[in-house]
């Protein structure tokens, strides 16, 4: 009875007190989905956690060693009912979460399926029409960004238009990094010679955090920056400014899905 009451209180707290602070937030469709998923999982875990702690407290009080009591407890043998219940409940939870998680991965949130996981070179479903393609190039110790639909310009800052699907193509030109746009709900491994993709659709303008999430050397801890979600008109203006500050075209290689320079030519 105590467990039931505490569980109900805990689940209500998860939905009404914890959810507004649950990461990664709601700056994009995908991060909102992830926040929802984290909330559901926390709500499922709450009765389990409460049960474990309640039983721990119960056991400490009821089964504590008493003065002069040095005998072993009574011998117990199989309890089929407990075992069956344990197996069925844990099976239901695990399978339920697997089905729920798979559905979340496959469902087309804002037209982009399988977002945020870095599913390799192709998304689970094709990108929606009008998506913005952005290539993220990681290196020790900075991220740079290419916009192939805008003359292949490359920038040191990341700007995205609001309410437009964005497909990130992530690679590295040295060691393994991880591109983590926290509030967008996107974290993708940046692997040399590999093009990892994931998508997102930002729903709010403003700044978001970019970090490297893979230990990558001396300045890994400093490999962070701010990205910005802009209105469509502000994004267009930003693109024009960037185009005016590009290197001479003949010094830039054509856009490629991956960059994997010849180590003999680029190893010092």
């Amino acid at each position, binding site marked *: 009875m105590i467990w039931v009451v505490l569980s109900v209180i805990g689940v209500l707290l998860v939905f009404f007190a914890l959810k507004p602070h649950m990461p990664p937030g709601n700056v994009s469709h995908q991060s909102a989905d992830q926040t929802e998923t984290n909330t559901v999982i926390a709500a499922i875990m709450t009765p389990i956690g409460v049960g474990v702690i309640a039983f721990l407290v119960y056991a400490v009080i009821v089964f504590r060693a008493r003065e002069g009591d040095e005998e072993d407890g009574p011998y117990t043998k199989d309890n089929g009912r407990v075992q069956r219940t344990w197996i069925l409940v844990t099976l239901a939870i695990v399978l339920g979460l697997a089905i729920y998680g798979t559905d979340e991965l496959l469902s087309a949130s804002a037209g982009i399926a399988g977002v945020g996981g870095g599913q390799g070179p192709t998304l689970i479903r094709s990108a929606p029409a009008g998506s913005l393609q952005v290539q993220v190039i990681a290196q020790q110790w900075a991220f740079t960004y290419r916009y192939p639909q805008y003359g292949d310009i490359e920038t040191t800052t990341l700007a995205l238009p609001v309410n437009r699907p964005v497909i990130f193509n992530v690679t590295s030109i040295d060691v393994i990094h991880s591109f983590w746009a926290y509030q967008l709900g996107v974290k993708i491994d940046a692997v040399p010679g590999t093009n990892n993709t994931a998508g997102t659709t930002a729903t709010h303008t403003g700044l978001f955090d970019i970090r490297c999430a893979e230990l990558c050397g001396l300045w890994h801890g400093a490999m962070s920056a701010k990205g910005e979600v802009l209105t469509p008109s502000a994004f267009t203006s930003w693109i024009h400014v960037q185009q005016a*500050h590009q290197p001479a075209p003949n010094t830039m290689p054509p856009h490629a899905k991956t960059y994997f*320079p010849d180590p003999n030519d680029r190893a*010092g």
Partner: protein
Amino acid sequence: MTRGARIAALLVSAVAVAALVAFYISTWVLNFPPAVQAQTSNGSASLTLETVAAYGHSPHSSWVSYFVKGADGRWHHTTIIDIPAHTLVHVTIINFDGNSGLRNPLWAKARGVQGAEISINGKPPIAGINPDDASHTFAIPDMGISVPIHGVADNAPNQCATPAPCPMSTAHTVTTFAFRTGKPGHYRWQCFVPCAAGFLNGFGGPMQTVGYMDGYLNVT
């Protein structure tokens, strides 16, 4: 083992672990090269750096490295520089190293500096160099500053072969530019050229060590 012996063993172990941690912190975590002050006059500052292909001294004589010229006119083996905030800084980088080439051509263009241009060997300012000609970069990512450093030609006569610092009589390039510091802070700077010969991806050893190809700009 008696209770007293167990406690003694525990205490000795704790002291040994604490000593190891203290040794690690003092030897590695807090062991930075000395800071060199940028020279200031008439509200602006000047900074002169040197890059060499090999330090030439122990413990890492073969490592590529930066040097900083101090107010005493001598070269200091450090990459930690004190510089005033909200000040125009005139920078001169004398490079005695050859070309390694940039892995990402983006850094071949000067960014964040006055006029978005640099001057090489006293010639008219340019916006950038051929990525293949880059020997090093001087980049302060959090200030949006990146400058490519042109390398010495492979066939240039009289290349520096002495322990650093290299004499000005040997082959070198001179890159000049200016940038304005902003608010006070502790800014890291680095080279983006994979110039650490003999290391994985050209980015180990000196590229991962403050005092060689990475450093701090203490803006105060």
